[in-house]
């Protein structure tokens, strides 16, 4: 094990880890927005809102994220979309995870006790008010964990943007493996940073989960 080499290059992995965090954070944000919109759309009484939402979820969960990324980055210019690797990474990852997050949010909304909804209606609340005051606060509690799982999957999934040359953790590991032929050392370095990022994030999600549960 070439510890000396690891000692010399770990700083570059640290720089790359920052890029992984940036891309993941932005993609998670985009995913949350898209997921929320699609979830609400899929629960709508209006068919023209329901069908696009269901289609979005079906297509983006039913095809590989890697293909979606390549389609966006390499195929985009043919339809007028010009993105640099970082942008394509954020949008590609975000749109993909949004479909999964939609299901998490939708699941949470659906599982709110029907009795509560009816009670709200009896009290004279309209549909939007029932959503805002009854369903969403309770659904919010239940969606924290599944969304947390989605987000952690995204942090690890962000590795795929290495294929479009974004200088994040996995690309850095691959580059060094290609030139030094020391895969174990590079795997260890990259893994350490991924594990740190995922652990910190999990801890954060756990904290949020506790707070939201307590508030009830």
């Amino acid at each position, binding site marked *: 094990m070439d510890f000396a080499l690891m000692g010399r290059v770990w700083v570059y992995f640290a720089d790359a880890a920052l890029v992984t965090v940036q891309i993941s954070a932005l993609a998670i944000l985009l995913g949350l927005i898209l997921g929320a919109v699609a979830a609400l759309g899929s629960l709508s009484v209006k068919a023209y809102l329901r069908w696009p939402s269901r289609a979005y979820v079906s*297509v983006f969960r*039913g*095809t*590989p*994220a*890697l*293909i*979606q990324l*390549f*389609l966006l980055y*390499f*195929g*985009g*210019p*043919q*339809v007028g979309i010009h993105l640099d690797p970082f942008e394509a990474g954020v949008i590609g990852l975000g749109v993909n995870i949004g479909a999964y997050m939609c299901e998490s949010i939708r699941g949470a909304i659906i599982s709110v006790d029907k009795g509560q909804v009816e009670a709200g209606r009896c009290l004279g609340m309209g549909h939007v008010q029932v959503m805002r005051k009854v369903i969403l606060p309770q659904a919010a509690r239940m969606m924290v964990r599944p969304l947390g799982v989605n987000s952690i999957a995204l942090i*690890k*999934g*962000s*590795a*795929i943007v*290495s*294929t479009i040359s974004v200088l994040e*953790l*996995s690309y850095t*590991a*691959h580059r060094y*493996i290609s030139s030094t*032929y020391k*895969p*174990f050392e*590079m*795997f260890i370095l*990259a*893994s350490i940073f*991924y*594990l740190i990022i*995922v*652990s910190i994030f999990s801890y954060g999600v756990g904290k949020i989960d506790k707070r939201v549960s307590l508030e009830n």
Partner: protein
Amino acid sequence: MGLDFSIVPDYIDILIAGTLWTIALTILSIIFSVAGGVLFAILQLNRHAAVRRPVSFIAWLFMGTPLLLQLFLIYFGLVQIGLDLNAFVAGVIALSLHFAVYNSDIIKSAIVAVDKGQYEAARSLGLSQLQAMRKAIVPQAIANVTPALGNMMIALLKESSLVSVIGVMELTLSAQRAISDSFRPFEFYITAAAIYYVLNLGLEHGVRIAERRSARYR
């Protein structure tokens, strides 16, 4: 540059070959990842901490790091310790190992969840330990895990696209081969996506049938 789907049929043989390799890769990895999952689950339920701890560590490591990284490690790394693997084998190993650890979690919970009372009832009816396992515990455990394992298999099919980066000529790399010749990425990536979508539908259908059949044992 515009779109021109008319050239796609010219490369249909490359795409079909790639699709078949994707199917082979997926089926083999599903089989090994379920077998591996059972093995890891049993090891993680072992009485001795000396057996449990290393297995749990590997599980934690593989669940906390990207599949892509694990793929590089296995393809480039195992050669150094004397195991020479071609890319396809490395791909199957990486996919199987990665999903085995997730499966082991699912299987572990299911084994533990099958009501202890069931086991005791079976024994009191005169069944030996092996028979109790075979006729009462295992069928129920299978019914419990099938939906979750089914989801893992569906995820595996999509993750199989990653082995293209180590040069396995499955569907994704085949599409890239067509692209490096025709310079039409949009057309071929859409075609590949459509093929994956259809494969996915097929797999989902299969999983749902398995769920219904195993639910008989609940």
